């Protein structure tokens, strides 16, 4: 059965591994440039160069969805749609084994392709990630480490199960995309921030600690948008807040004081920093990065496993 499953999957596998090889070659060639640029005192050149190449790393964001749509959804839907399942299921192989082998082979390939790609992207981006320290940001988090593998396994299992349920290729592909994107967005938005209780701290408002700061009325508080420079590499969950004193009380009436100073665009940050204010932040420390990676990967892998068991049950019990 394995050989037959491979024969059916061969072309798609070769295309995928071909693209993967090309991407890895591209990373290998461009990586030394990033390493050299990272040695410069100013990070701008490095960031600019990275920005021109980043589209290749972005591939990792769409690869799990593509796997779900093009490997998962048609895997069973096409057999059901064209009637070839009647040929396959009447050979001397039980349909549960038939399905198990197909899922294992193509699902395994999904995991390997995404794993290798993610490892390559993570390695290639290291010089930039060391500078930007933003690997906890929503987009970058899902393009590094091991989570893409979980996404790919999940997308593939969703595609296979929907193909089995809908029995038609195109609707299954569309539904797979919708379910996968929905699940990813919902998880990023509502689940990931709550995986661990965040750390609450009152931190000094240094010049690197905020993106913007301003007052809405002369007697109002100073409203600060916190930058992750306040705790490099951490995931800041509280975006903006009022500036407080060291005891945690909101400070009012800064308008007059700020107005008396000669504030320009250049010295704005230093002027704010000189006020000696604090800001209360909730954040996930950088040290928790791999915990988050493992937990999210585990959850998506678990969902993939549940869907796979469902498919194996369905093909035997319900599809008759």
């Amino acid at each position, binding site marked *: 059965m394995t050989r037959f499953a491979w024969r059916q999957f061969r072309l798609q596998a070769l295309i995928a591994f071909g693209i993967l090889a090309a991407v890895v070659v591209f990373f290998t060639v461009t990586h030394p440039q990033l390493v050299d640029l990272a040695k410069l005192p100013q990070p701008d050149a490095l960031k600019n160069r990275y920005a021109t190449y980043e589209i290749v790393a972005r591939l990792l964001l769409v690869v799990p969805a593509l796997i779900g749509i093009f490997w998962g959804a048609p895997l069973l839907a096409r057999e059901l749609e064209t009637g*070839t399942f009647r*040929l396959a299921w009447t050979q001397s192989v039980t349909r549960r084994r038939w399905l198990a082998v197909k899922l294992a082979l193509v699902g395994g390939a999904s995991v390997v392709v995404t794993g290798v790609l993610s490892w390559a992207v993570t390695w290639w981006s290291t010089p930039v990630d060391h500078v930007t320290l933003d690997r906890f940001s929503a987009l970058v988090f899902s393009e590094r480490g091991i989570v893409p593998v979980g996404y790919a396994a999940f997308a593939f299992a969703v595609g296979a199960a929907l193909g089995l349920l809908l029995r038609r290729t195109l609707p299954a592909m569309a539904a797979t995309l919708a379910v996968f994107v929905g699940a990813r967005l919902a998880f990023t938005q509502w689940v990931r921030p709550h995986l661990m209780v965040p750390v609450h701290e009152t931190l000094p408002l240094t010049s690197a600690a905020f993106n913007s700061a301003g007052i809405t009325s002369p007697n109002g508080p100073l409203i600060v948008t916190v930058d992750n420079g306040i705790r490099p590499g951490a995931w800041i969950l509280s975006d903006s807040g009022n500036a407080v004193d060291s005891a945690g009380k909101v400070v009012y009436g800064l308008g007059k004081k700020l107005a008396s100073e000669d504030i320009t665009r250049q010295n704005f940050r230093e002027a704010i920093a000189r006020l000696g204010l604090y800001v209360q932040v909730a954040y996930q420390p950088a040290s928790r990065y791999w915990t988050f990676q493992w937990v999210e990967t585990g959850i998506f892998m678990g969902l993939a496993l549940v869907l796979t068991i469902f498919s194996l049950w369905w093909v035997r019990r319900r599809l*008759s």
Partner: protein
Amino acid sequence: MTAVLEARGLGKRYGRSWALSDCDLTIPAGRVAGLVGPNGAGKTTFLHLAVGLLAPTAGTIEVLGRRPAQGADQLAQVGFVAQDSPTYAGLSVSDHLHLGAWLNPGWDDEMADARVESLGLDPQKKAGRLSGGQRAQLALTLAIAKRPRLLLLDEPVASLDPLARRDFLRQLMEAVAEQELSVVLSSHLVADLERTCDYLVVLVDSRVQLAGDVEELLAEHHRLVGPRNGGRLPGGWEVIEESHTERQRTLLVRCSNPIFDPAWSVEPVSLEDLVLAYMARGARDVAPPTGLVGLP
């Protein structure tokens, strides 16, 4: 006499409608059985139940003494060609033979190759580019080369032109003779079955109307022509079909005893007449409300 296929009270329901109901049927070993009936009679449902593609809603079915598709070894003993002979359009003829070899422990490589060669199929040609007849032959090759004990064919010649149809049936009969196969094949055309089958099952509107050995059935059924008012019919005659003209009365009866009544002239019936009579009777039994029939 052992049975290759035995159904007891077999039924399959889709939603609210029964595609097959209350089916009791025994098909003996070593036969080529024809399953005949109009479109939508439940032939495909019956065959899918027999290969385990479907599970019964009611009753039981045993194929070669076991539940269909119960395990790999049960599957290995039954060959099946589904309607329209599905094949993998993107795979070549030789890929299909590999498929057969990989998926069937009893695969007969020599026979498969010999058949493909004698059919003149190009091994490199994709199955999607074969003609309907070639595809049917390829599917039959796959089903036969796994060396099953029972071969089930669903409308194998429905989409073929007359020449391909004849070739296909001849190839099938050759394989049957060589391998001591039992065969069940369905068709909605009696002519296809006349040349090949020695056992007949008539299925109309989800029910079995008639089943039996073809020769016995032909011996038991007679066409009788007699006077319009010919009096009472003797006991033991089962009238299957009846028609009148002004003076004459024509009956198709089932009667196992010889008929000596001089009032009737007795003629043999053809298989086609027999099947059509039972189909007509089956359709009458489940006729729609009377308001809808008999309008000019």
